[in-house]
C-alpha cells in the first residue's frame, strides 16, 4: 500500500530459523535508521519441516498496518526445494528480488521479470564450522549482497547479538562468506 515501506517475505521450513533471520534483519534495519520495523510470522500452527512464512516490513517511519504482506518487494527462500512446493514469487512486484539458498546458478531459475540471487549456503555453513543445516545466518549474507539495503557489518553485529553463547562469530562469519559468494543474476 505504502511506497515508503519495503516488504520482504521469508520462506523457510518450520525449525529452520526463518523467523530468527528476519528478526536479525529487523534489528539491523532499526539500528541503520529504519524507525519502523515490523516482523510478523505466519499466524498458524507451525510444524517442524513444513513450509512457513514470515513477513518483514521496513520503513523510515512507524508502521501502522500490521497485516500480512501480499505484494512483497523481495522474497528470501531458505531452502531451494520450497520453490517446487510453494509459489514463492506470488504477488512479488515486477522487477522484484528473489534470494534463494541453492547450489544452482540464478540463470537456472525462470522467474519472469524478476531478479534472482543464489548462494550455496548449505555448503558454506559447514565451511564456517556450523552444524549441518544451519542456514539462517548465511542467508542474511546473501540478502545483504543482493538487496544492498543494509550494511553487512551492521548485519554481522546483529547476528552476534542474537547468537550470544551460540557460536556468534561462526554465525557472523557464515553471513560474511555467503556475502562474498552470492551470485546475483540479471
Amino acid at each position, binding site marked *: 500500500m505504502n511506497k515508503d515501506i519495503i516488504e520482504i517475505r521469508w520462506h523457510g521450513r518450520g525449525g529452520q530459523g526463518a523467523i530468527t533471520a528476519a528478526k536479525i534483519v529487523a534489528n539491523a534495519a*532499526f539500528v541503520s535508521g529504519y524507525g519502523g*520495523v515490523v516482523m510478523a510470522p505466519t*499466524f498458524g*500452527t507451525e510444524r517442524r519441516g513444513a513450509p512457513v512464512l514470515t513477513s518483514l516490513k521496513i520503513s523510515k517511519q512507524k508502521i*501502522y498496518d500490521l*497485516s500480512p504482506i501480499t505484494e512483497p518487494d523481495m522474497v528470501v527462500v531458505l531452502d531451494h526445494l520450497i520453490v517446487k512446493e510453494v509459489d514463492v514469487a506470488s504477488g512479488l512486484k515486477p522487477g522484484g528480488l528473489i534470494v534463494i539458498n541453492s547450489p544452482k546458478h540464478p540463470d537456472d531459475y525462470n522467474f519472469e521479470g524478476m531478479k534472482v540471487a543464489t548462494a550455496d549456503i548449505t555448503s558454506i555453513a559447514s565451511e564456517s564450522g556450523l552444524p549441518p543445516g544451519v542456514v539462517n545466518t548465511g542467508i542474511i549474507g546473501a540478502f545483504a549482497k543482493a538487496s544492498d539495503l543494509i550494511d553487512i557489518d551492521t548485519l554481522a553485529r546483529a547476528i552476534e547479538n542474537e547468537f550470544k553463547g551460540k557460536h556468534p562469530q561462526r554465525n557472523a562469519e557464515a553471513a560474511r562468506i555467503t556475502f562474498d559468494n552470492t551470485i546475483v543474476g540479471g
Partner: protein
Amino acid sequence: MHIIESGNVAAANGVKLAKVQVIAAYPITPQTPLTEKLSEFVDAGEMDAQYIPVESEHSALSVCIAASSTGSRVFTATSANGLLYMNEQLHWAAGARLPIVMCVVNRGIGAPWTVWNDHQDAVSQRDTGWIQIYCCDHQQIIDTVLKAFYLAETVNVPVMVCYDGYILSHTYMPFEIPAQADVDKFLPPFKPDYALNPGQPANLNTVTLPDIRPDVRGNMAPGYMEIRHNLHTDMRDAIAVVADIDKKFAEVFGRNGNPYIEEYKCDDAEFVAICMGSLSYHLRDVVDILRKEGIPVGVMGLRLYRPFPDQAVRDALSARKGIIVFEKALSYGNQGALYADIKSALYCAENKPAVHNYILGLGGREIKTDHLVECLRNSCKQPKTIGDTPQWIGLKL
C-alpha cells in the same frame, strides 16, 4: 533502551519491571509465550516472584485471588476459552476488590475452535466488574501493564490489559523498555488496606444478607447491594483516576497523554472511525488514503472500554456528521457491543451524528486495507443511520 521483540515479551517485561510477587497461569495460545517468558525470568532469578503452575485457568485466578488477599502484587494472563473458564473467579476477584492485573491476549472463542484474533473473549466479560484497557502496539502494552498495577491498587478493582492475539502478541516491533529506576519512581510498592495474615485469622466475603447488619466488631457493615453500588461508583470514579495516572506516567516517561481515546486526524474530521486495539492503527493508513480523496475523516482508538468514558466519547464524537464503529465482537441477536455503548453515549448529545456498525476480523479473518477503504468511503458518502443491523466486512457467504 529500545528492543525489537514480540508483544508477549513486551508484556512480560512490564510484569518484571512492576516487581510482581506472585504469578499463576495456565498456557493457552496465543498467550503462552508471555507466561513462558515470565517463568524464564523467575527461573533465572531476574524476578523475585513465586511462579505457581496450575492445572487450569480457574485455578490460575483462584491462586491469584488468594495471593492478592494476602497483600501480594499478582499477575496472570490468558486468552479466549481460558478467560471464559475463569468467569466465576473474574466476578469473585472484582467483588472481593482485589487489584489483580491480567493480560488478555485477545482470541476468538470456541465452538468451533479458533486460535486467531477477535475481541469476543474480553468483550463477553465486560460486566464482570474488571477494568478493561485495549492496546494498539507494543509500547502501549508494556506501558499499560505498569499503569494497570497503579490503577488497580489505587481503586481496588482488577484490570485486564487487552491486546490482539498474533497481530500484536506474535509480531515483532521496536519498543522502549523503561529503566527500573524510572518505574520505581512511578509505581510505588503495593500497600494493601487489608491483608490476610495467619496471626489474625479472618473470614472474607462470607454470606452477605440482603440487608445491612452489624459486623463482628459491632460496626454497621454494608449489605450485598451496598457492596455492588460501591463497586459501581468506584468504577465510575476510576475514569478520572485513569487520567491522573496517565499524567503521572507522562511526567516520568515523557509519553502518552490519551488515557481514553487516541485520535488521528480528527481535528477537522466530519466523519470518525472508532474501534479498539491494533485495528485503530491500521485504520490510520485507511484515513490517509481517504484524506487524499478529499474525504474529511479521522480515526479514534478507544483505550478504556470499562469503565466506559461516556463523557469523553460524547465530547469527541457529538459534533461530527457520521461515526463508523468497527468491531471484532458481537452481541448475538442485537449489534456490536461497542456500537451500542457509543449510541447510548450520544443519545443525550444535542447533535446526534449518524452511526454505522461494521463487524470484521472474527476468528482472524483477514482485514484488508482496500476493504476498509471501501467501507469507510461508503459510510462517509451516506451519513444516515441505516438501522441497527451491523454490516459485515470480508464475509464470504
